[in-house]
Protein backbone atom coordinates (compact mmCIF):
# COMPACT_ATOMS: atom_id res chain seq x y z
CA UNK A 1 0.00 0.00 0.00
CA UNK A 2 1.43 3.35 -0.99
CA UNK A 3 1.56 6.41 1.20
CA UNK A 4 -1.55 8.52 1.10
CA UNK A 5 -0.82 11.83 -0.61
CA UNK A 6 -3.04 14.86 -0.22
CA UNK A 7 -3.66 15.83 -3.84
CA UNK A 8 -4.21 19.50 -3.16
CA UNK A 9 -0.75 20.18 -1.77
CA UNK A 10 1.38 17.08 -2.27
CA UNK A 11 1.81 16.46 1.46
CA UNK A 12 1.98 12.82 2.49
CA UNK A 13 -0.31 11.60 5.27
CA UNK A 14 1.28 8.72 7.16
CA UNK A 15 -0.78 5.75 8.32
CA UNK A 16 -0.45 4.37 11.84
CA UNK A 17 1.97 1.70 10.61
CA UNK A 18 4.06 4.25 8.75
CA UNK A 19 4.19 6.46 11.82
CA UNK A 20 5.49 3.48 13.80
CA UNK A 21 8.30 3.09 11.28
CA UNK A 22 9.08 6.80 11.55
CA UNK A 23 9.20 6.45 15.34
CA UNK A 24 11.78 3.70 14.90
CA UNK A 25 14.08 5.74 12.68
CA UNK A 26 13.48 8.69 14.99
CA UNK A 27 14.87 6.65 17.88
CA UNK A 28 18.00 5.86 15.89
CA UNK A 29 18.52 9.56 15.16
CA UNK A 30 17.90 10.51 18.80
CA UNK A 31 20.36 7.89 20.03
CA UNK A 32 23.08 8.89 17.53
CA UNK A 33 22.51 12.51 18.48
CA UNK A 34 23.25 11.89 22.12
CA UNK A 35 26.33 9.79 21.25
CA UNK A 36 27.74 12.59 19.07
CA UNK A 37 26.84 15.27 21.59
CA UNK A 38 28.79 13.43 24.29
CA UNK A 39 31.76 12.91 21.96
CA UNK A 40 32.20 16.60 21.09
CA UNK A 41 34.92 18.20 23.18
CA UNK A 42 37.85 20.55 22.64
CA UNK A 43 40.50 18.95 20.42
CA UNK A 44 38.33 16.67 18.29
CA UNK A 45 37.94 17.35 14.58
CA UNK A 46 34.62 17.54 12.77
CA UNK A 47 35.74 14.61 10.59
CA UNK A 48 36.12 12.44 13.72
CA UNK A 49 32.59 13.36 14.77
CA UNK A 50 31.38 12.39 11.32
CA UNK A 51 32.88 8.92 11.78
CA UNK A 52 31.31 8.57 15.25
CA UNK A 53 27.90 9.48 13.83
CA UNK A 54 28.17 7.17 10.84
CA UNK A 55 29.29 4.19 12.95
CA UNK A 56 26.52 4.75 15.49
CA UNK A 57 23.84 5.01 12.81
CA UNK A 58 25.09 1.92 10.97
CA UNK A 59 25.43 -0.08 14.21
CA UNK A 60 21.67 0.28 14.62
CA UNK A 61 21.05 -1.02 11.12
CA UNK A 62 20.19 2.37 9.63
CA UNK A 63 21.86 4.32 6.82
CA UNK A 64 23.06 7.94 6.97
CA UNK A 65 20.72 9.91 4.75
CA UNK A 66 22.82 13.00 4.01
CA UNK A 67 25.79 11.13 2.55
CA UNK A 68 25.50 11.42 -1.20
CA UNK A 69 22.34 13.53 -0.90
CA UNK A 70 22.07 15.61 -4.02
CA UNK A 71 19.52 18.36 -4.32
CA UNK A 72 20.10 19.02 -8.00
CA UNK A 73 22.20 20.49 -9.51
CA UNK A 74 24.76 20.92 -6.74
CA UNK A 75 27.38 18.35 -5.78
CA UNK A 76 26.41 15.45 -3.50
CA UNK A 77 26.93 16.06 0.20
CA UNK A 78 30.09 14.10 1.11
CA UNK A 79 29.45 13.21 4.76
CA UNK A 80 27.05 11.76 7.32
CA UNK A 81 26.72 14.95 9.35
CA UNK A 82 26.67 18.65 8.66
CA UNK A 83 29.09 20.20 11.12
CA UNK A 84 28.92 23.99 11.28
CA UNK A 85 31.23 26.17 13.38
CA UNK A 86 30.20 29.52 14.90
CA UNK A 87 29.14 31.81 12.02
CA UNK A 88 28.43 28.80 9.81
CA UNK A 89 24.66 28.34 9.83
CA UNK A 90 24.16 24.93 8.25
CA UNK A 91 25.58 22.39 5.76
CA UNK A 92 29.19 22.64 7.01
CA UNK A 93 31.31 19.81 5.60
CA UNK A 94 33.30 17.84 8.22
CA UNK A 95 37.07 18.20 7.83
CA UNK A 96 40.26 18.73 9.80
CA UNK A 97 39.14 21.79 11.73
CA UNK A 98 39.57 21.26 15.45
CA UNK A 99 36.81 22.09 17.91
CA UNK A 100 38.09 24.71 20.35
CA UNK A 101 36.98 26.03 23.72
CA UNK A 102 34.49 28.86 23.23
CA UNK A 103 33.17 27.61 19.86
CA UNK A 104 29.52 26.90 19.27
CA UNK A 105 29.02 24.05 16.82
CA UNK A 106 25.89 22.83 15.05
CA UNK A 107 25.45 19.20 14.12
CA UNK A 108 22.70 18.14 11.73
CA UNK A 109 22.12 14.65 10.34
CA UNK A 110 19.54 12.16 9.25
CA UNK A 111 19.10 8.42 8.94
CA UNK A 112 17.02 6.01 6.88
CA UNK A 113 15.51 2.83 8.33
CA UNK A 114 12.82 0.68 6.71
CA UNK A 115 12.51 3.27 3.94
CA UNK A 116 11.73 6.20 6.24
CA UNK A 117 13.79 9.24 7.15
CA UNK A 118 14.51 10.94 10.47
CA UNK A 119 16.23 14.32 10.62
CA UNK A 120 17.45 16.29 13.61
CA UNK A 121 19.98 18.94 14.63
CA UNK A 122 21.40 20.67 17.69
CA UNK A 123 23.92 23.35 18.58
CA UNK A 124 26.25 22.98 21.52
CA UNK A 125 28.72 25.31 23.22
CA UNK A 126 32.25 24.04 23.85
CA UNK A 127 33.39 24.79 27.41
CA UNK A 128 32.51 28.31 28.42
CA UNK A 129 30.95 30.42 25.71
CA UNK A 130 29.98 34.07 25.70
CA UNK A 131 26.73 35.05 27.37
CA UNK A 132 25.37 36.17 24.01
CA UNK A 133 26.19 32.82 22.43
CA UNK A 134 24.47 30.97 25.26
CA UNK A 135 21.40 33.15 24.93
CA UNK A 136 21.37 32.53 21.17
CA UNK A 137 21.41 28.76 21.65
CA UNK A 138 18.76 28.84 24.37
CA UNK A 139 16.53 31.08 22.27
CA UNK A 140 16.85 28.81 19.25
CA UNK A 141 15.79 25.81 21.32
CA UNK A 142 12.88 27.75 22.78
CA UNK A 143 11.75 28.94 19.35
CA UNK A 144 11.81 25.34 18.11
CA UNK A 145 9.59 24.31 21.02
CA UNK A 146 7.20 27.16 20.34
CA UNK A 147 6.99 26.07 16.71
CA UNK A 148 6.44 22.43 17.65
CA UNK A 149 3.60 23.52 19.96
CA UNK A 150 1.71 24.78 16.89
CA UNK A 151 2.03 21.49 15.00
CA UNK A 152 -1.52 20.41 15.81
CA UNK A 153 -4.36 19.15 13.63
CA UNK A 154 -6.52 22.02 12.42
CA UNK A 155 -3.73 24.57 12.75
CA UNK A 156 -2.17 26.29 9.77
CA UNK A 157 1.36 26.10 8.46
CA UNK A 158 2.09 29.75 9.12
CA UNK A 159 1.09 29.29 12.79
CA UNK A 160 4.36 27.38 13.18
CA UNK A 161 6.38 29.98 11.26
CA UNK A 162 4.81 32.82 13.22
CA UNK A 163 5.49 31.19 16.59
CA UNK A 164 9.15 30.54 15.74
CA UNK A 165 9.73 34.03 14.37
CA UNK A 166 7.91 35.77 17.21
CA UNK A 167 9.86 33.85 19.82
CA UNK A 168 13.20 34.53 18.13
CA UNK A 169 12.65 38.20 17.40
CA UNK A 170 11.26 38.95 20.86
CA UNK A 171 14.67 37.86 22.18
CA UNK A 172 16.50 40.08 19.72
CA UNK A 173 17.63 37.47 17.21
CA UNK A 174 16.91 37.16 13.51
CA UNK A 175 15.66 34.04 11.70
CA UNK A 176 17.25 32.71 8.54
CA UNK A 177 14.81 32.92 5.62
CA UNK A 178 16.60 31.38 2.70
CA UNK A 179 16.56 27.91 4.25
CA UNK A 180 13.43 26.25 5.53
CA UNK A 181 12.14 23.17 7.31
CA UNK A 182 10.29 20.55 5.32
CA UNK A 183 7.92 17.64 5.26
CA UNK A 184 9.67 14.31 5.75
CA UNK A 185 8.84 10.64 5.22
CA UNK A 186 10.00 8.31 2.47
CA UNK A 187 12.03 11.25 1.17
CA UNK A 188 14.26 13.57 3.17
CA UNK A 189 12.65 16.67 1.70
CA UNK A 190 8.92 16.49 1.10
CA UNK A 191 6.17 19.06 0.83
CA UNK A 192 5.43 21.45 2.45
CA UNK A 193 8.21 23.95 2.99
CA UNK A 194 8.20 25.04 6.64
CA UNK A 195 9.61 28.58 6.77
CA UNK A 196 10.71 30.03 10.09
CA UNK A 197 9.27 33.41 9.23
CA UNK A 198 6.06 34.69 7.74
CA UNK A 199 5.10 37.97 6.19
CA UNK A 200 1.40 37.28 6.70
CA UNK A 201 0.99 36.41 10.38
CA UNK A 202 -0.62 33.23 11.71
CA UNK A 203 -3.59 31.53 10.09
CA UNK A 204 -2.28 31.12 6.54
CA UNK A 205 -1.11 28.25 4.44
CA UNK A 206 -1.88 24.57 4.47
CA UNK A 207 -4.24 23.24 7.12
CA UNK A 208 -2.31 20.79 9.29
CA UNK A 209 -3.68 17.26 9.62
CA UNK A 210 -2.91 14.24 11.77
CA UNK A 211 -0.43 12.01 9.94
CA UNK A 212 1.70 14.81 8.52
CA UNK A 213 5.34 14.70 9.62
CA UNK A 214 7.43 17.86 9.55
CA UNK A 215 11.08 18.67 10.17
CA UNK A 216 10.89 21.97 12.03
CA UNK A 217 14.24 23.68 12.17
CA UNK A 218 14.77 27.29 13.21
CA UNK A 219 18.16 28.82 12.43
CA UNK A 220 18.75 31.96 14.51
CA UNK A 221 21.43 34.61 13.99
CA UNK A 222 22.76 37.26 16.33
CA UNK A 223 23.06 39.77 13.49
CA UNK A 224 21.42 39.87 10.07
CA UNK A 225 19.26 37.02 8.74
CA UNK A 226 21.04 37.26 5.42
CA UNK A 227 23.27 34.40 4.38
CA UNK A 228 26.21 33.68 2.12
CA UNK A 229 27.13 30.40 0.43
CA UNK A 230 30.82 29.47 0.56
CA UNK A 231 32.69 28.29 -2.52
CA UNK A 232 32.49 24.65 -1.49
CA UNK A 233 28.89 24.88 -2.69
CA UNK A 234 27.46 23.74 0.67
CA UNK A 235 28.53 25.71 3.72
CA UNK A 236 26.09 28.52 4.51
CA UNK A 237 27.42 31.34 6.70
CA UNK A 238 25.90 34.51 8.11
CA UNK A 239 26.45 37.48 5.80
CA UNK A 240 27.93 39.54 8.65
CA UNK A 241 30.03 36.79 10.27
CA UNK A 242 28.03 36.82 13.52
CA UNK A 243 27.14 33.59 15.34
CA UNK A 244 24.28 31.32 14.32
CA UNK A 245 22.52 28.41 16.04
CA UNK A 246 20.26 25.64 14.70
CA UNK A 247 17.92 23.17 16.40
CA UNK A 248 15.70 20.68 14.61
CA UNK A 249 13.27 17.89 15.36
CA UNK A 250 11.23 15.56 13.20
CA UNK A 251 7.69 16.06 14.50
CA UNK A 252 4.58 14.00 13.78
CA UNK A 253 1.22 15.74 13.93
CA UNK A 254 -1.18 13.43 15.78
CA UNK A 255 -4.68 13.73 17.16
CA UNK A 256 -3.08 13.92 20.61
CA UNK A 257 -0.94 16.88 19.50
CA UNK A 258 2.64 17.14 18.29
CA UNK A 259 4.88 14.12 18.83
CA UNK A 260 8.65 14.62 18.70
CA UNK A 261 10.17 11.60 16.98
CA UNK A 262 13.84 12.49 17.31
Amino acid at each position, binding site marked *: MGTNVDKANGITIKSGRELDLMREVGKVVAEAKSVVRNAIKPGVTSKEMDIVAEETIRSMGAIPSFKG*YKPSPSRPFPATICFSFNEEIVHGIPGDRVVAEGDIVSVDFGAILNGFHGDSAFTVGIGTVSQKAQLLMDSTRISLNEGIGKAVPGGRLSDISHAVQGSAESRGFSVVREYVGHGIGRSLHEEPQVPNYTDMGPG*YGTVLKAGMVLAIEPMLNIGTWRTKLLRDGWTVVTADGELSAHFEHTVAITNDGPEILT
Partner: protein
Amino acid sequence: MPKEKESIEVEGTIKEALPNASFKVELANGHEVLAYISGKLRVNYIRVLPGDRVLVDLSPYDLTRGRITYRFR
Protein backbone atom coordinates in the same frame (compact mmCIF):
# COMPACT_ATOMS: atom_id res chain seq x y z
CA MET B 1 19.04 19.28 6.82
CA PRO B 2 17.21 22.47 5.93
CA LYS B 3 15.98 22.79 2.42
CA GLU B 4 16.85 25.74 0.25
CA LYS B 5 13.76 27.87 -0.03
CA GLU B 6 11.94 27.67 -3.33
CA SER B 7 9.32 30.08 -4.47
CA ILE B 8 6.41 28.88 -6.51
CA GLU B 9 6.77 30.28 -10.03
CA VAL B 10 4.03 29.97 -12.59
CA GLU B 11 3.24 31.46 -15.97
CA GLY B 12 0.14 33.47 -16.55
CA THR B 13 -1.59 36.02 -18.71
CA ILE B 14 -2.59 39.51 -17.58
CA LYS B 15 -6.39 39.82 -17.54
CA GLU B 16 -6.95 43.26 -16.16
CA ALA B 17 -4.95 46.21 -14.86
CA LEU B 18 -6.05 47.38 -11.43
CA PRO B 19 -5.10 50.48 -9.45
CA ASN B 20 -1.82 50.50 -7.49
CA ALA B 21 0.13 48.72 -10.20
CA SER B 22 -1.59 45.47 -9.40
CA PHE B 23 -3.05 43.11 -11.94
CA LYS B 24 -5.47 40.27 -12.27
CA VAL B 25 -3.50 37.40 -13.75
CA GLU B 26 -4.93 34.20 -15.15
CA LEU B 27 -2.52 31.31 -14.51
CA ALA B 28 -1.88 28.41 -16.83
CA ASN B 29 -3.97 26.20 -14.52
CA GLY B 30 -6.97 28.51 -14.91
CA HIS B 31 -6.77 30.10 -11.46
CA GLU B 32 -6.96 33.85 -11.12
CA VAL B 33 -4.55 35.64 -8.80
CA LEU B 34 -3.90 39.19 -7.70
CA ALA B 35 -0.31 40.15 -8.49
CA TYR B 36 1.78 43.26 -8.21
CA ILE B 37 4.80 44.36 -10.22
CA SER B 38 8.21 43.48 -8.79
CA GLY B 39 10.54 46.35 -7.96
CA LYS B 40 12.95 45.21 -10.63
CA LEU B 41 10.38 45.57 -13.39
CA ARG B 42 9.30 48.92 -11.97
CA VAL B 43 12.82 50.32 -11.80
CA ASN B 44 13.44 49.32 -15.39
CA TYR B 45 10.13 50.85 -16.57
CA ILE B 46 8.90 47.57 -17.97
CA ARG B 47 5.27 48.12 -18.93
CA VAL B 48 2.83 45.32 -18.42
CA LEU B 49 -0.43 45.37 -20.34
CA PRO B 50 -3.50 43.14 -20.47
CA GLY B 51 -2.73 40.17 -22.71
CA ASP B 52 0.98 40.01 -21.83
CA ARG B 53 2.42 36.70 -20.73
CA VAL B 54 4.23 36.99 -17.41
CA LEU B 55 5.97 34.94 -14.76
CA VAL B 56 4.32 35.13 -11.34
CA ASP B 57 6.00 34.29 -8.04
CA LEU B 58 3.27 33.04 -5.72
CA SER B 59 3.25 33.47 -1.98
CA PRO B 60 3.67 30.09 -0.30
CA TYR B 61 0.99 31.04 2.20
CA ASP B 62 -1.63 32.56 0.02
CA LEU B 63 -1.81 31.10 -3.45
CA THR B 64 -4.17 33.82 -4.62
CA ARG B 65 -1.53 36.53 -4.38
CA GLY B 66 1.72 36.92 -6.22
CA ARG B 67 4.41 39.10 -7.65
CA ILE B 68 5.09 39.58 -11.34
CA THR B 69 8.79 38.94 -11.86
CA TYR B 70 9.13 38.70 -15.63
CA ARG B 71 7.31 39.78 -18.77
CA PHE B 72 7.75 37.54 -21.79
CA ARG B 73 8.26 39.19 -25.16
